[in-house]
């Protein structure tokens, strides 16, 4: 038993070493490459600013790691961001809620949206892909319907602290992201909840027969995904000072790309938060580097698509060789 456990730990450590070392090495090379290419890149200001921009996707990518480890997927996150942003603006401006209450409402709607996804997936047993494709249309549609294409502006100044403020020189939302990374990392690595996520992804049937609370854990993962999408919406609104129904469009792509690039298997059962963080940083560097060399935003989307497919192709060919 212990022998199996240690050997498994040893082999896992090897896999760790491989994927994360490769990624980290690529990261360092990319950092210096971009630094040589453009002298505006390796400045504290630029790097901190990239951290600011990274948070919105990062907050979504963390629970997305959980979801993908269970063998599921959630493509509705971008739509939840849009819905939460609209709920925030609408309940504050049109319903006259005080802003703190509107913030709570927005987060509540995010969690409820995630819970709805999880409920349909675990109770009605609709595959995660189809559930979240359907709710993507629904949530985005609700955002469009509620807002009627009106944007909301003019939030009080204190609200902008989250998206534009600094704490000891560090962007506020970057601190939020760092705290979230630690919480999600510990939850995945050090709790029975985290172990259950891996167990579900490796073999859901076996996990069920081992009396693990499979449905409850999956439900929690999707609810978390909705909740942090709501948080991401708050950060986004606070940063760009306006709400529109098309906010968060395409975030699912960036988040999934970060998770998959970070070494989480799209088939479930393996992956780490640290990998996702590195994947996240890589994607942000890529965006920033491309932008600094004069590539427009739309071409950047294209590059991320290529990176997503390429990283899955490489990961699957590596896996095949190992087996």
């Amino acid at each position, binding site marked *: 038993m212990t022998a199996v456990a240690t050997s498994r730990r040893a082999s896992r450590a090897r896999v760790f070493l491989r994927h994360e070392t490769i990624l980290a090495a690529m990261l360092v090379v990319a950092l210096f490459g971009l630094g040589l290419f453009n002298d505006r890149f390796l400045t504290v200001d630029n790097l901190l600013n990239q951290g600011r921009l990274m948070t919105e996707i990062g907050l979504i990518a963390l629970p997305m790691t959980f979801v993908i480890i269970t063998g599921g997927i959630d493509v509705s996150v971008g739509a939840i961001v849009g819905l939460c942003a609209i709920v925030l603006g609408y309940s504050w401006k049109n319903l006259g809620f005080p802003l703190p209450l509107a913030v709570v409402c927005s987060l509540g709607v995010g969690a409820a949206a995630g819970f709805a996804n999880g409920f349909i997936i675990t109770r009605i047993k609709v595959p995660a892909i189809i559930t979240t494709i359907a709710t993507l*249309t629904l949530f985005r549609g609700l955002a469009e319907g509620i807002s009627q294409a009106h944007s909301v502006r003019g939030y009080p100044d204190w609200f902008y602290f989250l998206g534009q403020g600094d704490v000891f020189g560090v962007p506020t939302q970057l601190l939020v992201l760092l705290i979230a990374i630690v919480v999600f990392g510990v939850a995945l690595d050090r709790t029975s909840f985290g172990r259950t996520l891996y167990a579900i992804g490796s073999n859901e049937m076996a996990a069920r027969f081992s009396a693990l609370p499979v449905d409850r854990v999956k439900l929690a993962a999707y609810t978390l995904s909705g909740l942090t999408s709501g948080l991401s919406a708050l950060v986004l609104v606070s940063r760009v000072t306006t709400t529109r129904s098309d906010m968060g469009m395409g975030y699912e792509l960036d988040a999934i790309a970060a998770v998959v690039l970070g070494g989480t298997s799209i088939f479930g059962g393996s992956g780490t938060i640290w990998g996702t963080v590195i994947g996240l940083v890589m994607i942000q560097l890529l965006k920033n580097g491309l932008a600094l060399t004069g590539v427009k935003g739309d071409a950047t989307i294209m590059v991320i698509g290529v990176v997503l497919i390429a990283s899955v192709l490489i990961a699957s060919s590596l896996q095949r060789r190992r087996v």
Partner: protein
Amino acid sequence: MSAIALPGAASARAPFWRRLSSQEMLLAVAIVGLAVIVGLVNPRFLSANNLADLLLGNAYIAVAAIGMSMVIITGNIDISVGALIGVLATLSGSLAVAGAPIAVTWLAPLVLGVAVMGLQGVIVAYVGIPAIVVTLGMLSILRGGLISVTGGKWITDLPDAFHLADIEIFGFIPMPVAIMVVATIVAAVWMRWWPLGRAIYATGGNPEAARLSGVSPHRTLVLVFMLHGFFAGIAALLFATQMRVIQSTTPSGLEFTIITASVVGGVSILGGVGTVVGSTLAAILIAEITSALVFINVSPFWTHAVQGTLILATVIADIERRRRRRAGAVR
């Protein structure tokens, strides 16, 4: 019973009332019923002009849904088709403006559509990467590529001969409607009676069983994706030629409208079940609902919410129905 439910096979034996409750019949009833109800509220909805516009403007969605249905029947999904239709329409329009022969402008989108989808099919089938990931990546490649190449400009000054959609067969059937009907019938017949068509259901129902009965699930999958690309090419042509300009952006969420048509049309997302007659009827129903919203004074901004509800309800109903049938079979 057999895991591969044969569409139509069950209904041939079923009593009359059972045949009425098939998805296709339900959709047909819904299309007529909705038309009557909305017509009572606002008679202008039933004007010949509106109904013709409705069919003409949405035929391309029905055509694209044929390929999507095949993909979903094999148990896969494709969310890149909306962006692909945008790329193919722009390609075709650019060629026309550049003065290429009309035949080339009509064939090019078909060829490129088959190539792009075939590539995705190969990655899905032979490398074993889930279609959702491959097509999500392709979606952003195509969308990002299109906008950065065209810069969001519209294509204008298209030659008159380019407008496939203007042709009327026998002088009164508009081309898009004719193509929609013919493509649906041909695809339905092919999938129902041709061995290759049956292989699509076999692959989706139970790939291992399909393999053991001499069907290559991999090759079938690639073929299905290529056909899907072909239909996307036709859809792009209809989309490009229906107006005098081509916008470089397709309607937002086009891929989801197409998936909605397939799923609401009775194609089971678990694979192996569904017909393209259903998906075409569903495409018409969705177009009708979207148009009806305007006529009963509901803001068009609610369209996607209605679509999302519709797809969710259909999927849940489909799963529940299967569960009840399975429970019945056990008893």
